[in-house]
């Protein structure tokens, strides 16, 4: 029985999207980091930006033929070994629920758990930063307990404040600035995740981890 294959798809002529097969895992994410490092050495590649177990590869020059590049990427994946990016653990105190957690009720309704259980489950793990994206400094985190997974909202909310702690599907993350979001916001935190004048401008990077601590539970 052969292993499931990754998929490569178009994002217009601007980039391609490489998706690792199967379940989301830290091991696959580390192989994605390794693949990103390699792809960025290719002359036609502008950036190779990891997502959650996937990779966006943007073009510096648009390849006249797409398939050879897609094939090369899949071959590189097969031989990519997990890249361990050593990093720091950042503690983030969270005020769960209340005004800063307007969608806690939706998570309760979907999961059937009560607020204390959700907070305990959410704040237990140390979450590795899988990828940056969504907006400046925003971190996609791996390792959320599937018991508190809640689907993204029917219609995205127009404005969620910076520092919002949210659940979208099987993932969790923290907003780095005000903006729209389709995720379920369950709490708030205070942290400066992005400063354009710093080098690098983002506080957290793939390889770092976040540990949420319970500052307060508001009803």
């Amino acid at each position, binding site marked *: 029985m052969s292993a499931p294959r990754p998929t490569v798809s178009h994002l217009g002529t601007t980039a391609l999207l490489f998706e690792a097969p199967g379940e989301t895992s830290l091991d696959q994410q580390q192989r994605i980091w390794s693949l990103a490092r390699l792809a960025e050495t290719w002359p036609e590649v502008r950036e190779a930006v990891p997502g959650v177990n996937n990779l966006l590869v943007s073009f510096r020059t648009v390849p006249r033929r797409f398939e050879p590049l897609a094939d090369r990427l899949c071959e590189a994946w097969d031989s990519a070994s997990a890249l361990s990016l050593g990093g720091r653990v950042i503690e983030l105190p969270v005020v769960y629920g209340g005004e800063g957690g307007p969608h806690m009720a939706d998570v309760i309704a979907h999961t059937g758990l009560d607020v204390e259980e959700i907070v305990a489950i959410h704040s237990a793990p140390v979450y590795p930063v899988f990828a940056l994206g969504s907006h400046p400094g925003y971190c996609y985190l791996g390792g959320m307990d599937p018991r508190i997974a809640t689907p*993204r909202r029917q219609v995205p909310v127009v404005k969620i404040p910076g520092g919002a702690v949210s659940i979208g599907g099987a993932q969790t993350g923290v907003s780095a600035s005000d903006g729209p979001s389709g995720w379920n916001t369950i709490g708030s935190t205070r942290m400066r995740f992005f400063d354009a004048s710093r080098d690098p401008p983002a506080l957290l990077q793939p390889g770092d981890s976040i540990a949420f601590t319970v500052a307060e539970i508001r009803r």
Partner: protein
Amino acid sequence: MIEILSRAALASVQDLGRFDAFRWGVGLSGAMDPLALTCGNILLGNEDGAAAVEMQVFPFSVRFEADTLFALTGADCAAMLDGVPLLPWSRAQAKAGAVLRLDHARDGRWRGARAYLCVAGGIDVPEVLGSRSTQLRGAIGGFDGRMLREGDRLPLGRAAGESRGTEIALVPPGLALPLEADGLPAVRVLPAAEYGRFTPASLDAFWREPFRITPQSDRYGFRLAGPGLEPVAPMELRSHGIVPGVIQVPHNGQPIVQMCEGQPSGGYPKVGTVIEADLWRLGQMPIGTRFRFLATDWDGALAALDERQAWLAEVRRLADLLSARSAAR
């Protein structure tokens, strides 16, 4: 310097966008119509990507504090310089103290939604992460990372060489590079990863029927009203990188096209991506526009890019030939 005379009016400093910062979660930003911005810069002898003022709401006025060579492209706004009408897509010389006024975008054989004021030497705000474009979400770049306000004074860069004497204007690409389907403006789309996971009937409607740009549309994204896209089965995807032009389908089935201020990653299913060569067309469609999506493939998308490059090359060559340089004795 140029001074903004209009109240808060959704205008901002933009160039061709901020590349190489997706890795930090920083999206492209830049002009909604990069073709118009490039043309304005070509008319002035600037680099293609010199920063300009993008205007989205009219009327809009600025005052030139010093003698300035400038160009206006994009939507035809019946522009007047101290009360004298200017040709659309032309360059002109302003004397110190002159006031430029743009009125509402006019109807004509092509109607735009955004206008671009380019100046010789470009708008000289600091580069942030490699670009002068304004990113609102992170308050990065442009003029203080925000939309322009009455009283703002924008510094201008040094013009390259002397001002060009010959008066020239351009035929707008909306006329020179037309694209229509059944009498409506159209944009080409390359299917994306989740294309095959929507029902054939809803995909058929997606290609055959018009969509309308709803009022909930802006530089971040265009929310469309039209035939709903139905997934064969519910989809919950992992977060992944996206680019401007990606057409996302949230749970209610009404597509959202990510535009240049759109976030660099998302998790909604993607039916396709408006090709890069056509994003300027979408960026110039006013709210309320009804338009069509046209299917294309990789070769078709490349051909569209080639056609756009060829047109720009012609503009460059002709502008050079007709500039003061060649006529000088």
